[in-house]
């Protein structure tokens, strides 16, 4: 046993030595990487580390951080009812808009794949535009306006489906559906582009071979040929849609107000902003950020391992 362990250690050491020699020979690689690595470390790795650290402290920027153990997390769960609302809302939004947006992105990318080139371009622009149109979702505050001049209210009143205008953006029960619709409208983002490009790249001869092998309709073709060869794009699209599904902030803030009635449209990110940038309770806000970070990473890892099984 001892010799085995010793062998292992020598092997490791040799490996390390080999890597070191190689690294010395390839110094210029590290030089090229250095500027990016430095910035990436400062603005992505360090923030995560310090956010975990601050989450165990009481910190308001002016005074030095005071270590208070798990108190922030205990307060989050036991005392902060608004946070629980925020978690519930975020999960509802993520669970609905994440998968639905993802599937819609793929389906529509697949549908437009066989259109003539110019028409496909037009369709890509129409579907992708909402997600890059800045704060164009502001128009929904006119469509869903609470008085009778609101577009939806006026239609419904005209149809005599409702007799008084509904307060779409102020009523706690109606806010979330409206927000979900708006987010779905904006959900065909980078992942959608990746799908469109990936579908164009699937080898045509595979379809012909599949046809000879007895594939008889488009759904079989999708399942047996298209999906397996799209796996890398599916993984990338999943990362994109999970990240945006959890990062919901601007839409509820702009539409339902900040803070919204009864905090009914509060999400984890707006809660984070409230504590971080309005009250400057950085320790508490860091605890919220850490929870969000863990949620996103876990969700991503779970979905990734699920998607890797597609078509295998």
């Amino acid at each position, binding site marked *: 046993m001892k010799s085995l362990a010793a062998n292992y250690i020598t092997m490791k050491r040799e490996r390390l030595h080999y890597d*070191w020699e190689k690294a010395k020979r390839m110094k210029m690689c590290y030089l090229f990487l250095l500027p990016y690595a430095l*910035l990436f470390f400062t603005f992505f790795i360090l*923030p995560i580390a310090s*956010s975990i650290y601050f989450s165990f402290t009481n910190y308001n920027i002016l005074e030095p951080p005071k270590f208070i153990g798990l108190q922030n997390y205990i307060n989050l769960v036991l005392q902060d009812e608004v946070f629980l609302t925020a978690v519930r809302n975020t999960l509802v939004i993520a669970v609905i808009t994440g998968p639905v947006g993802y599937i819609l992105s793929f389906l529509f990318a697949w549908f437009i794949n*066989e259109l003539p080139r110019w028409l496909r371009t037009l369709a890509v622009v129409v579907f992708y*535009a909402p997600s890059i149109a*800045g704060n164009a979702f502001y128009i929904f505050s006119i469509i869903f306006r609470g008085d009778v001049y609101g577009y939806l209210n006026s239609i419904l009143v*005209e149809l005599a489906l409702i007799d008084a205008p509904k307060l779409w953006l102020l009523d706690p029960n109606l806010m979330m559906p409206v927000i979900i619709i708006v987010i779905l409208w904006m959900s065909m983002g980078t992942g959608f582009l990746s799908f469109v490009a990936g579908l164009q790249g699937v080898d045509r001869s595979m379809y012909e071979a599949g046809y000879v092998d007895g594939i008889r309709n488009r759904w079989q073709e999708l399942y047996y040929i298209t999906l397996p060869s799209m796996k890398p794009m599916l993984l990338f699209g999943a990362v994109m849609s999970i990240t945006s599904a959890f990062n919901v902030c601007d839409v509820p803030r702009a539409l339902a107000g900040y803070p919204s009635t009864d905090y009914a449209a509060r999400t984890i990110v707006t809660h984070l902003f409230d504590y971080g940038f309005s009250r400057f309770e950085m320790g508490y806000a860091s605890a919220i*950020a850490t929870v969000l970070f863990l949620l996103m990473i876990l969700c991503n890892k779970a979905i990734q391992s699920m998607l890797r099984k597609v078509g295998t």
Partner: protein
Amino acid sequence: MSMNPTPYKPAKRTRGDILHEQMVLRGEIVENKEPVSHKKFIIISSIIMALLIAVVVVSFVRVDAVESAALQGLELPKDAAYASIYMVGKVAGIVIGAGYLFFALIHVLAPKRRKPNRSFWGDLGIYLMLAIVAVAMAFPLVFSIASSLKPLDELFRFPPKVFPQHVTLDNFSDLFVTLSQSYVPFSRYLVNTVFITFVGTFGHLFIASMAAFVLAKYDFPGGKTFFSIVVTALMFSGYVTGIPNYVIMSKLKMIDTYWAVILPAFAAPIGLFLMKQFMEGLPDALIEAAHLDGASEMRIFWSIVMPNVKPAWLTIIIFSVQSLWNTNAATVIYSESKKTLVYALQQIQAGGVARAGQAAAVTVIVMLVPITIFVLSQSNILETMASSGLKD
């Protein structure tokens, strides 16, 4: 069965066609799908057309009746039946009309030879659905453009109309009047945004491309680990780092400077990711040949690799411009003279009823910039996205 192996002339026969024909001839495949004839297409399109006309005629007849009643001083019949027929007519007219147009265009413009495994009804269903969803997706954008062209009284009329009755550019000119009266001159906001966008984008492009080059083309210890960390960063980028970044910026004394926005943008993981994936597609031989000719790494990077990844850097520029153009940066920039254009415009949007027209104009201005850039560069972006997949 009737043997009918070549019902129409294929434009170009692929290997699959030939194999298929041989199998049909040998009787191994029973050919049961007829190619779509123009007869079928004409019948179906006429039915749709007739439906459309019927619905529209019915709705208009009803509207005429109601309006003439109103002219004679009679009370408007507010019964639900009238209203619903009217609305159904409008909506169905738009939807079916758009769907029909779409479908007809496809059939006229698509190649005559149909692909295997595509049923006629499936195509029809998909085209109709595409048309309906495309109309629904485009509606809010069209509505915001239309609203920005309405005079104020039309913005608040009942029932509201989608399209303006009297087109006017007053909202835009009012917006410029408001902006010229602001505390800080309007041009200042514009300069701020242009500076942030320009420096942020080109710095990011250069720094991320350098890193992507060595990650894609050299196998050095730590490279793969570093890249997998960057991919993980794709999963949480966004607001998670906002709070600690604020603390870091305040330690670096960069709060209330442009750098608080620009420096994090330099390190955006999506740019590095897309660039690296695209560079992997470059042939290694290209770089080896340059090495043999004695070119330095910097020279290889600058005059061989970069010119060959034009689609990727256009994509990076566009993604970066989109995000920087849309930042309001209100959390890290306090001085009014350093605020961004989007921030100033959002203040006008928040101005309530009196500024509703200007708010609509703002929305249009903010949204047109990224959409225009995308339209102009979409072919390059799609070329880059083709290599965006996450490999195992």
